[in-house]
C-alpha cells in the first residue's frame, strides 16, 4: 500500500476472540488500530481520522464465539451505537463470529444481532472442531489468473446459506458461499487474520479508502 498522509484508524471489537491478530495485520499495513471493549472506547480514536462523519474509519468484528460477543455488546452498551455506525455506512469487516453478528438471519439460531447484512448464515455448518479445515480458493477482486487462490482457515465455521440479490458473492468453497460484500459490509466465514497473507485486509483498507474517495 502506498503511504498516504494519514493512516486510516480502525476500531477492532475486543470483547472476546481473536482481535489481536487483526490488529497486528492492519498495523503491518500501515493502519492505526484501537480496541473497543466498552462504550467510552468509541470516542477513543485519535482525532486525525479521515472522515468527519464517523468517529473512526473502519470497524473489525473478529472471530470468537458469537454468543459471547453478542451478549457482551448488549451488556456493555455497545450494541446500538455500533449498529448505527454500520447502518450509516461505516466500512466493516466481519470474520466468522463477526459475520454471524452482521447477518440478517441465522438458520439454526433464533438470535439476530446487528442484522445489517442481507444474508442467512448457518452456524457451525461443518460440525465440531474435527470439521475445521484449510482451503485455498479464488477470491473475487483479489485473486487473478497468475495468482489464483488465497489461503482460508475455517474454524468451526459458519456458511452463508443464502444471500440477498444485491449481495456480491466473493468466494465459495465446495459450492458454499464463504465471503460476501454488501455496500460497506465485508463478511467472511473463515479467518484471514490467522494467515500471513494480508490481501483480504488490504482489500478492506481499499474499501475504507474508496469510502472517503481517497486513493489507496
Amino acid at each position, binding site marked *: 500500500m502506498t503511504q498516504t498522509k494519514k493512516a486510516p484508524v480502525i476500531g477492532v471489537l*475486543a*470483547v*472476546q*476472540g*481473536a*482481535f*489481536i*491478530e487483526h490488529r497486528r495485520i492492519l498495523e503491518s499495513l500501515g493502519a492505526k488500530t484501537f480496541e473497543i*471493549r*466498552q462504550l467510552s472506547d468509541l470516542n477513543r480514536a485519535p482525532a486525525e481520522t479521515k472522515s468527519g462523519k464517523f468517529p473512526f474509519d473502519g470497524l473489525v468484528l473478529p*472471530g*470468537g*464465539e458469537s*454468543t*459471547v460477543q453478542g*451478549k*457482551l455488546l448488549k*451488556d*456493555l452498551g455497545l450494541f446500538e451505537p455500533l449498529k448505527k455506525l454500520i447502518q450509516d455506512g461505516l466500512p466493516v469487516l466481519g470474520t*466468522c*463470529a463477526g459475520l454471524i453478528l452482521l447477518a440478517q438471519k441465522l438458520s439454526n*439460531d433464533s438470535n439476530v444481532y446487528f442484522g445489517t447484512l442481507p444474508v442467512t448464515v448457518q*452456524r*457451525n455448518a461443518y*460440525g*465440531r*472442531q*474435527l470439521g*475445521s*479445515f*484449510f482451503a485455498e480458493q479464488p477470491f473475487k477482486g483479489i485473486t487473478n489468473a497468475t495468482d489464483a487462490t488465497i489461503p482460508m*482457515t475455517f*474454524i*468451526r465455521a459458519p456458511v452463508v446459506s443464502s444471500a440477498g440479490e444485491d449481495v456480491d458473492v466473493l468466494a465459495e468453497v465446495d459450492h458454499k458461499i464463504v465471503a460476501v460484500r454488501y455496500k460497506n459490509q465485508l463478511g467472511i466465514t473463515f*479467518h484471514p487474520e*490467522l494467515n500471513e497473507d494480508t490481501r483480504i485486509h488490504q482489500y478492506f483498507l481499499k474499501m475504507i479508502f474508496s469510502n472517503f474517495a481517497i486513493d489507496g
Partner: protein
Amino acid sequence: MTEKYIADRYELNKNLAQMLKGGVIMDVTTPEQAKIAEAAGACAVMALERIPADIRAAGGVSRMSDPKMIKGIQDAVSIPVMAKCRIGHFAEAQILQAIEIDYIDESEVLSPADDIFHINKRDFQVPFVCGAKDLGEALRRIEEGASMIRTKGEPGTGDIVQAVRHMRLMQQEIARLTSMREDELYNRAKELQVSYALVKYVHDNGKLPVVNFAAGGVATPADAALMMQLGAEGVFVGSGIFKSGNPEKRAQAIVQAVTNYTDAKLIAKLSEDLGEAMVGINEQEIALLMAERGK
C-alpha cells in the same frame, strides 16, 4: 495421515484456542448448567460429572465422565464443549475423540492413570489443553502435542494463590528466556527438558507458541481480572460458579470482568450483590495437591 495433514491439524487446533481468547470456560455437570453457562457468556464449557470441589470432597479415583452425559451437553449448547481425561489415559482420550469433543483436557483434576508418561497428543486429531505450573511443564506438554496451556492452580479450592504462583513463574521464566544470549539457549533447553526449537520460539517471541489460560481457584470477578492482568489470555472457572450462591449472575460478572480486566470501576460494580462465593479451602488446609500430578 500425511505430515502435511498432521501439521495442518495442529495449526487448526491452535487456531481454535485463539478463538477462545478473552473468554471464560466454565465447568458444567448437566445440560441445564451448560445452557446457563452459555447464556451467561461462556466461550466454551467443560463437561464433567463432578466439579473439582466435589471430586475433592468425594475422594477416591476420579475418571473420565460418562460419554452419554457429555453428549447431552454437546446437544444442549452451540459453543465448544471440552471434557477431561486422566493424565496418560490415551484410551479415555480416544473415546472423547470418538464422540467428537472439541477439546480434551488431560487433567490433573482426575486421578492420573500414568505416573510417568503423558498422552502422545500428536496421535490425535482433536486438540488438547494441559495444565502447567512453570515454563518447563508448559513446553513439555506442547512438545507432546498440546495446542493450549492453562495454569494448574489448585482446582476445587476457590483459592487463587496457586494459579497466581504458576502464572507469575511462567511469565518470569519467559522474560528470563527472552533476555538470554542465543548460545545459552541450548543449555536452557536441556534444563527444561524440551527441544531447542521450542526454547528458541519463546526466546524470539516472548510468549508460548500456544494460547495460555488461567485455571484453578478462580472464584470472583476480581480473581479473573487479577489473572488477566498477570498475562492470562482467558480464564477457566470450575467450582467457582456452580458452587456459589447465584451462579448465573456470578458467571456474567466474571465474563465481563475478563473483557474489561483493567477497569476497576466496572469490576467494582460487577462485584456487587453476587451472593455467597464458594466457601473455599486455603492452600494449607488441603490434603491433596492436584497441581503436583503430572510434571
